[in-house]
């Protein structure tokens, strides 16, 4: 959704339980379970953290803030998930946040020792938002296992900045902060690789795309919506119509206030 700063902070407060100031740049931290996401979160925020639950869910919600180059950042640690296809509450929370909260940057943390499995999540995030940074964590463990990952060519393949880190040793975090700043301020504009589906799926998508194009005024990728329609993903459609309603209510408020003038 393309939101004004006030509306965004209201939405974050009410639907994601996160308080954000208007001047803060927002970061979402996504990744599989056990990839060192929390280590990175802690390293970035230090003691400036708030923990609680996601509204109405029994899933932990951690967010924190930090300053870099005199810019204030707010970072939200999403639940660890293998995918965004919403089979679990955690996946649903992560997906809704990425789709509707509209963070300025999304950092996807990958486990360098099992790149292939971890890339699945990254590719799914790429479909939702272009402002993504891939953080290739656990590089130290990958080295121990004699795995060599060609980071520049991974960067080319993915079309987004890739930062190699070993968060437990504090390695690569400075570069991560820098890249986050660059993407958040629009200095760097990633062009994430889009998943190529098999011809059956692509032709079905082509059929659906014209119908979904106008639903969100392009604030959410029509392709993503069409894909979920093909999935028959009820939980996403519920979330979508929910957030459309929010949009609609505020829209009506705005119209009414205009009439009152």
């Amino acid at each position, binding site marked *: 959704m393309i939101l004004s700063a006030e509306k965004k902070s209201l939405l974050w407060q009410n639907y994601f339980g996160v308080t954000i100031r208007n001047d803060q740049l927002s970061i979402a931290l996504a990744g599989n379970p056990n990839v060192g996401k929390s280590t990175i979160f802690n390293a970035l925020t230090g003691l400036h953290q708030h923990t609680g639950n996601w509204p109405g869910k029994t899933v932990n919600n951690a967010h924190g803030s930090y300053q870099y180059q005199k810019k204030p950042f707010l970072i939200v640690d999403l639940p660890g998930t*293998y*995918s965004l*296809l919403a*089979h*679990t*509450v955690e996946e649903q929370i992560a997906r809704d946040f990425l789709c509707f909260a509209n963070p300025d940057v999304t950092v996807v943390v990958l486990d360098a020792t099992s*790149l*292939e*499995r971890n*890339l*699945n999540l990254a*590719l*799914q995030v790429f479909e939702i938002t272009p402002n993504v940074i891939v953080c290739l964590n656990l590089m130290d463990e990958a080295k121990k296992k*004699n*795995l*060599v*990952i*060609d*980071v520049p*060519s*991974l960067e080319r*393949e*993915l079309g987004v900045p890739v930062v190699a880190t070993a968060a437990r040793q504090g390695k690569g975090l400075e570069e991560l902060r820098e890249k986050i700043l660059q993407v958040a301020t629009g200095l760097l504009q990633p062009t994430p*690789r889009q*998943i*190529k*589906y*098999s011809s*059956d*799926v692509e032709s*079905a998508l082509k*059929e*659906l795309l014209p*119908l*979904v194009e*106008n*639903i*969100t*005024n392009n604030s959410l990728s029509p392709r993503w*919506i*069409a*894909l979920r*329609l*093909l*999935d*028959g*993903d009820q939980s996403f*459609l519920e979330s*979508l*119509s929910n957030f*459309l*309603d929010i*949009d*609609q209510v505020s*829209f009506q408020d705005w119209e009414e206030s205009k009439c009152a003038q």
Partner: protein
Amino acid sequence: MCAMSSSRNLSEAYGQAEYVRKAYRNSFSDQIVADIYGNAEQITKHVLSSKGRHRIGFDQIIDNLVTSKWFGYPLMILLLVGVFWITIEGANIPSGLLASVLFAFQDQLTLGFQWLGAPDWVHGVLVLGVYRTLAWVVSVMLPPMAIFFPLFTLLEDSGYLPRIAFNLDHIFKKAKACGKQSLTMCMGFGCNAAGVTSCRIIDSPRERLIAILTNNFVPCNGRFPTLIAITSIFIGGAIASYSGIINALVISGMILLGIAVTLTVSWLLSITILKGEPSSLVLELPSYRRPKIGAVIYRSVIDRTLFVLRRAIIIAAPAGAVIWILANIYIGELSILSTVAHTLNPLGKLIGLDGFILMAFILGLPANEIVMPILIMSYLSTGSLQDFASLEELRNVLVSNGWTWLTAVNVMLFSLLHWPCATTLLTTYKETGSKKWTFLSFLIPTLIGFSACFILTQVVRMLGLA
């Protein structure tokens, strides 16, 4: 207004998507997931390399074998048969030994009571009621458990169980249920109440209910000994030379039948009262570990064997006393026990059991562990046989009470397919919070149990085989 129309657009698009989805022969969601994985695999190929010699991990080789299309299932069944074969072969001798020791001690007890000059009924309740029941529970149930549970824990600890779940996911999907259900079934092998609780790992309420309602079709700790005892006493004994392997095959067959019933019922529920499409699951296969022997022994002996035995003894001891009393209080010609059994007899006979067996199952509602002990107690208390030296004698008791191979098979079938125990029902009520679903979790297995035994019995009788 623009937002209003977007809601309408959404439902319109949804209708169209429904149409496109129905027209496609495969599942789009599977295809989408497969494509995402395909993309990830392609990228990985380009950027990842291993230093030095390219080494295929030990894990990878085993995983390719145990989860392979061709070898996965046969290996699973082979392991199952193997485990039961070891259990049954291994349990025979200690069973006999335990029985002879424990029953020799019973004679000493009787002498002791006589020496003390205790009244007959005290001796009856305590020795013939409580002690004899306990002796049977221990000698029939302890050896198989002490062998089976360490083996099962070994499989669990080595990381094989998640591979089973992986293998089974495909057929669960066919039954429109969730692959995680196989994990809850693995829990159910331990205890159905624990299995029902473990259904919490399934996120979709529909699939969770299916898993809860069908968990009872995997035999739990309490029912395994019954199955093992009856096959070793009855089925394998008939063909002496291959008894061990035949017993193992029969029990494995029972478990496979349980799984088949689980799948069928899941599918039936999915197309009737719990309609819906299956969701896919992400399962992280842990790497194989060398099981820690200490942990295996502790978990299997303390957590499982002794736990089950304790539960059986706690319930079986008073039950033994009560049954002895019921068997020795006469109303007119018949004891209370026989009266009840005779009342149930017509129904029992109809499904190839008898009144005593049916009564044992009903009295076994608090815990399945005590079905066999109750049954033996009721037969013994009415007959004149008193002392036993081996399982062979037990077989004679059963035969003299009119058992045939068909009775044995029916008892096993009924044990596999009858109502859940009280603990499981209570847990189901807690988990679903609904009396309706709890009642259904009682009704479905009961109906299936009765009809399976009924059909088998009638068919066999019609063919004149027994």
